[in-house]
């Protein structure tokens, strides 16, 4: 994890800097004047120092000179944060070896432009702060309109646990429930609240914006929503949006886990449609997981190909890889496949031809 040292006598500015650094997922160390900052730079060896100019005890220019004069800190990147931007100050700090400067008051965009030169672009999803894992079965719906909240509750209640908030209390709700999904109306919640929520952890964010209001749609994307729905939307559209956003934040390991289940002592692998983006992405992790299942004492695997209706070279190659890996891991394997074209192509392959069954139940029976 990268480390950033912020040196500023103002607690408010240190707090603002910390919030602006959240998308970078870095550790932030604070110092309240130049002297403390020079010592902290030596101790922590940060990847970036953000240094205020006007401070008591030792000002930013003196601190920068001290940092550059010390062999232990002279190579550390420093960006000055200054309320002044006069030519003589800029010339002075450039001579001292500053890597950039940000003029206060600053917008998020100008801050990120300078900081990204040193730290690289901020990650799309901020990492979760320390705490229990997110509850993927809970959705927090944030909307200023009680009627929309009631409709969302009704639409989602059968699928997920639903929490609602009309505004700022969303932050408290998120902290207490750690929902895996946040469904938010950009117009009534405001992009600031969305930004704060995004900073709390890597929930999947679904924005809702008025149909046809492209400005609101753009604002939702800019605020970090993984997908944006037209509002008002149907329950199915809401669920679809949740799936899309969840897939955007899920790790490959999460996705592999969702493909695996157990039934009657068999591990069941629900092979995804080969046309889906998930298919190619998960295979390397999937074969790794199969090895682990064998090591954990698993003995039987059913590869359920009910979602695969057409055969092609990728499908065959993938199934052969899965069967080979499972066999090596000590798992007896059966393939449930109903599509005639898929059956025909797998019959041609030595690794699969004797493992084909017309249904999942038949495959499980075949392994008894």
């Amino acid at each position, binding site marked *: 994890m990268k480390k950033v040292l912020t040196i500023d006598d*103002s607690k408010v500015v240190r*707090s603002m800097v910390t919030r602006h650094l959240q998308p970078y997922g870095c550790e932030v160390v604070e110092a309240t004047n130049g002297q403390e900052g020079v010592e902290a730079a030596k101790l922590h060896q940060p990847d970036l120092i953000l240094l205020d100019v006007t401070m008591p005890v030792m000002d930013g220019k003196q601190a920068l000179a001290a940092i550059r004069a010390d062999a232990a800190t002279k190579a550390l990147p420093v960006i000055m944060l200054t*309320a*002044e931007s*006069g030519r003589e100050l800029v010339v002075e700090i450039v001579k001292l070896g500053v890597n950039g400067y940000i003029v206060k008051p600053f917008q998020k965009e100008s801050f990120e432009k300078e900081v990204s030169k040193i730290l690289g672009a901020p990650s799309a999803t901020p990492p979760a702060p320390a705490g229990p894992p997110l509850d993927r079965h809970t959705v927090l719906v944030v909307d200023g309109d009680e009627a929309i909240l009631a409709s969302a509750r009704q639409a989602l209640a059968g699928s997920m646990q639903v929490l609602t908030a009309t505004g700022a209390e969303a932050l*408290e709700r998120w902290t207490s429930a750690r929902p895996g999904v946040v469904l938010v109306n950009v117009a009534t919640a405001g992009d600031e609240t969305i930004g704060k929520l995004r900073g709390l952890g890597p929930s999947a964010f679904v924005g809702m914006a008025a149909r046809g209001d492209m400005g609101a749609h753009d604002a939702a994307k800019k605020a970090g929503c993984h997908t944006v729905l037209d509002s008002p939307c149907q329950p199915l559209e809401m669920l679809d949006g949740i799936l899309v956003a969840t897939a955007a934040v899920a790790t490959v390991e999460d996705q592999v886990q969702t493909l695996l289940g157990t039934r009657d002592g068999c591990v069941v692998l629900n092979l995804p449609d080969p046309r889906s983006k998930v298919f190619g992405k998960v295979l390397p992790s999937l074969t790794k997981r199969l090895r682990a299942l064998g090591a954990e004492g698993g003995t039987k695997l059913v590869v359920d190909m009910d979602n695969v209706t057409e055969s092609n070279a990728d499908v065959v190659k993938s199934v052969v890889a899965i069967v080979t890996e499972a066999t090596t891991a000590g798992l007896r394997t059966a393939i449930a496949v109903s599509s005639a074209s898929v059956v025909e192509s797998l019959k041609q392959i030595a690794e699969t031809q004797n493992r084909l069954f017309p249904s999942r139940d038949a495959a499980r029976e075949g392994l008894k």
Partner: protein
Amino acid sequence: MQGVTSVEIVEESAREVVTTTVGTEVVRTVHATVPDTTFNGFVATLAFVGTKGGTLVVYCHRPLAVGMAADMLGMTGEEPDEETVRDALGELVNQIAGTIKRKMGESGNGIMLSVPVVVAGAPLSHCVKSSAQPLSVELYVPNGSMCVCLWPN
């Protein structure tokens, strides 16, 4: 700073800082008179020193000062303590002064900013020794108003 800055520069600078740093809308501004020397609230002061001098003062009543500090910290549902409010007001006056200097262009060269001083009291006697007319602006935001005054030396 007499003759090299204007009430418009003070107004634009204050507006820029309040909208960007506090993140609140400035509803309107009025070229105002300076508040009474006896003021009930927070008074944030910063000196311009060097080739040209002056004193910048921000007067802000307590409820607005507390609200702006909370906004700057991203706090919801709790109130910042007195020290934090003073810190926030100090940062605001510092940023307004820096912006005024920047907007003065070449005329601002050779001017340095002091560390801000923020005091609060009820009532507070306040006096700036300057023979010049102050450049004074009242900024109205949704939750109140604040007065920003620059006394050129």
